[in-house]
């Protein structure tokens, strides 16, 4: 599967290399829109010293970790959100006649390498936060772990949203609410949100495990909502459970398509 993924992604990268100007433009555009998100945070901190009880550097740490996970997923798998377009114009049928997993073919179709710019921007924000924060080195192992489980959680969300499009062929926007909405939510410390919302994105849709819960551990902070300490380590578990659900939903969606046609 990895081989097939790399093969297809590389083919599209080569195709994109034929248009270097377009590549540069997309790269710049991606960086610019990502910079706006960052600017919003910096503007807030021009007027206050703390947001939801967190300093500027701590917020940038949370922003950076969620940002890397989200932009990596956006780069690698976000084309999954085009399922309904593939159904409507019949290209899904052409994926299904090939001896290769359909999920990978959809994820890599028109792979956009220029999205790497936003990954670098998020990495820069995290790099700055790490340099400024002076975190406990014995807790730093959590950073790669949370980024990895974040990628798995976002990819699962995208897959769930894509599976939903098999049922809602006419409303692909509904699924964007999950994917991009989740990413927006995870940019800020969860202490700025209401208790009910945070409960929902902890126990129902496990967004809190992307950066909030593991981030509290890395920052050496207690949870202002008072959840027990072991929850800081549940990120990989939540990611795995969600991935399993997403895989089941995807299978079901594809089965539905193959038994309804269109």
């Amino acid at each position, binding site marked *: 599967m990895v081989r097939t993924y790399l*093969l297809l992604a590389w*083919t599209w990268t080569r195709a994109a290399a034929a248009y270097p100007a377009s590549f540069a433009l997309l790269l710049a555009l991606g960086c610019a829109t990502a910079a706006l998100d960052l600017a919003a945070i910096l503007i807030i901190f021009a007027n206050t010293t703390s947001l939801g009880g967190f300093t500027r550097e701590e917020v940038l740490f949370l922003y950076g970790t969620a940002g890397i996970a989200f932009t990596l997923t956006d780069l690698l798998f976000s084309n999954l959100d085009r399922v309904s377009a593939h159904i409507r114009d*019949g290209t899904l049928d052409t994926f299904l*006649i*090939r*001896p290769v*997993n359909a999920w990978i073919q959809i994820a890599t179709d028109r792979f956009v390498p220029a999205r790497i710019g936003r990954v670098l921007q998020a990495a820069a924000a995290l790099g700055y936060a790490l340099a400024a924060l002076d975190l406990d080195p014995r807790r730093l192992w959590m950073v790669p772990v949370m980024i990895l489980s974040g990628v798995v959680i976002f990819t699962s969300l995208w897959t769930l949203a894509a599976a939903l499009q098999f049922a809602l062929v006419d409303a692909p926007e509904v699924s964007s609410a999950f994917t991009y909405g989740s990413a927006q939510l995870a940019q800020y410390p969860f202490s700025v949100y209401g208790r009910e919302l945070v409960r929902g994105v902890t126990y129902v849709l496990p967004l809190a495990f992307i950066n909030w819960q593991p981030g509290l551990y890395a920052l050496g902070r207690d949870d202002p909502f008072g959840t027990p300490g072991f929850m800081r380590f549940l990120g990989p578990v939540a990611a795995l459970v969600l991935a399993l659900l997403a895989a089941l939903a995807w299978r079901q969606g594809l089965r539905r398509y*193959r*038994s309804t*046609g269109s």
Partner: protein
Amino acid sequence: MTMIELNQAGRTFKVKRRTVHAVRDLTFTVAPGEFVGYLGPNGAGKSTTIKMLCGILTPSSGTVRVAGLDPSRRRTTLARHIGVVFGQRTTLWWDLPLKDSFELIRLLYKVDRKVFAERLAELTATLDLGPFMSTPVRQLSLGQRMRGDLAAALLHAPEVLVLDEPTIGLDVVSKAGIREFLARINAERGTTVLLTTHDLGDIERLCRRVMLIDHGRLAFDGTLDDLMASAPGLSSIEEVVTHLYTAGR
């Protein structure tokens, strides 16, 4: 030994709470090396049959076997044994040059590099692909694109080739080229071919056997001569087919 085998295959769709039988009780076999024309008016169930043959659609009743496999259960395995061409849409990558599409197919189907080079050279010569090998697929003319699609469907040397209206919209010269090519691979390689088309010239020129489907049922199955003999007094294939299409209403 059969290449394609349908036994009481049926397929229903739910349309606004009504059940529509796209295909019902379809039973036929196709032997290796046969060249079969699959005819029927619009909406008769031709595309539904083809989608069941390549595993895109799961039959709602009966069984389907292609190259000894159940298409809906063994779809990705079957993909290595079957070549599919949709005349209405390309299976090539729209933004990639033709030669990159072919290379990608080589890698996806895991065809040995040397074997692939030989096949591609042969297909390039017989389909005259050379002049537009480096052109992105979206810039190809319909005739060029169809030749590219045919080559793409044959690069993994499938035993069965399923063609859904491959000559639609083509000019007479392109059509003749495609027909000649299809006759040749059927004769030389022994590839089994199932061809749906609305162009009766394709059928006259290529198919020893004709199947006619109407309202989801098989209305005729026999040789071209049998087809002509089924309606005495009518002299052209157009007249016979028109007669059969309208007789079912």
